[in-house]
């Protein structure tokens, strides 16, 4: 059972999709990160309302050959690392989103 299943993107970030990857920069530290293809799927799916487990099952396991247990373990590690850098917010309850949610198209 995940302690904080709700995940949202921080508003203090710059982010953009680049091919099948995503560039994310912390606005506070100007540190640049890149997310690979699978991490990008999770990044784009977090909305503060959908539990991480559901995102993993419906988005990751549906697209990639991986068991839900392994995928969830990896996803938890990813979101915790990104949260430590201030790029994601984690909560026990759904996280309200701003009126215009950060989009990272294309």
């Amino acid at each position: 059972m995940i302690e904080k299943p709700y995940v949202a993107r921080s508003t203090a970030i710059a982010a953009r999709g680049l091919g099948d990857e995503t560039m994310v920069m912390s606005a506070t530290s100007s540190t640049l990160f890149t997310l690979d293809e699978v991490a990008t799927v999770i990044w784009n799916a977090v909305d503060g309302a959908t539990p991480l487990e559901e995102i993993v099952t419906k988005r990751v396991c549906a697209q990639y050959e991986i068991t839900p247990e392994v995928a969830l373990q990896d996803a938890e590690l990813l979101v915790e690392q990104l949260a430590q850098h201030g790029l994601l917010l984690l909560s026990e309850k759904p996280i309200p989103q701003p009126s215009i949610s950060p989009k990272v198209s294309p």
Partner: protein
Amino acid sequence: MSALVAEMVAKALKLNIPLNVHLDLTYRCNERCVHCYLDHNDHGEMTTGEIKDLLDQMADAGVFYLTISGGEIMMRRDFFEILEHARKRTFSIKLKTNGILIRKKEADRIKDLGVESVQISIYSHVPEVHDAITKLPGSLRQSIEAIRRLRAHGIHVIMANVLMVHNAADYSGVRALAAELDAQFIMDPTITPMMDGDRSILKLNVDEAALREVFRNEALVGNVEEFCAPPQGPDEEALDMMPCSAGHTACYVSPYGDVYPCVQFPLPSGNVRHMKFVDIWRDSPQLKEVRSITLRDMPSCSKCAHGATCTRCPGLAFLEGNMRGPSSQDCEKSYARTGILSENLKSRKASSQSFRSQLVQIQGLQPAVRDFAEVVTENSAPNA
């Protein structure tokens, strides 16, 4: 550039994505800098709605790094509305401003909106020198106050020092001021022509001796021996290099919606009031032409010893009349750095001597010829 950023740029280049856009919101300004390349009158700036729509288009096209500049950006009353929208679209934003209109309230909002950096031009640590360049009494004091306010909020401030004849002796003082204010110091020793092609302000450029001194200052360039090393000449790989990011992974949009390869490269390539930004980026014949040019296509530079190491600006070359030609200002910088003449300077020197020898024979025949001789000599001399 970090390895990660270099990797991202390479990927953007491969995918034809405009990673970096410089957007000027206005050319209006509350200063009147002697070296400015802009016409400060408003000829029909984009509306708030047009700019917001453009920001949406740029985000969808993949723009990540957005420089918002002017003119003075805060001359627009809708500046924070635009900045807020840009941040909602998650650009990494750098602001360029003189800071004069940044009071506590503005500094608070810039902090809240999470911009990456704010760049403020400081021409001298001496008020009389700085204010004479901006033609605004008290401007140095006000810009420094803005820097202090921004730094107090932990905002990354870049202090940009443009070198010219008026302040050639002051860059060390500005650098010390930057250290005192805990701001990053950068220096640009090049005055560029006005965007309409007027080259009269080039007379403000510092001379070769001053450039040479700058290029041998370890605090500015790092390893002087390496920085000033004689050039090796371009190899086969270098001949296929792109000249710079202009038009390749970067472009410029004016307050009127005109798209250019770069702010220093005023080649009209389309207007976002008539076409979608992404269509201009992908299909503009002008941008395609810029992208097609490698060092191999430049008749003079491909044969020049400095070809692979020169800071050649294709925009300055364009403003000299040929985007495949040399940029004489960069030739002069290469010469000041290494003591070795570029192919361009060699041929100009030769033609200048040729003109002089002819003029000895006709000197005194008629005043009009003498006037012509002065123009040719002045324009042909290195570091004119």
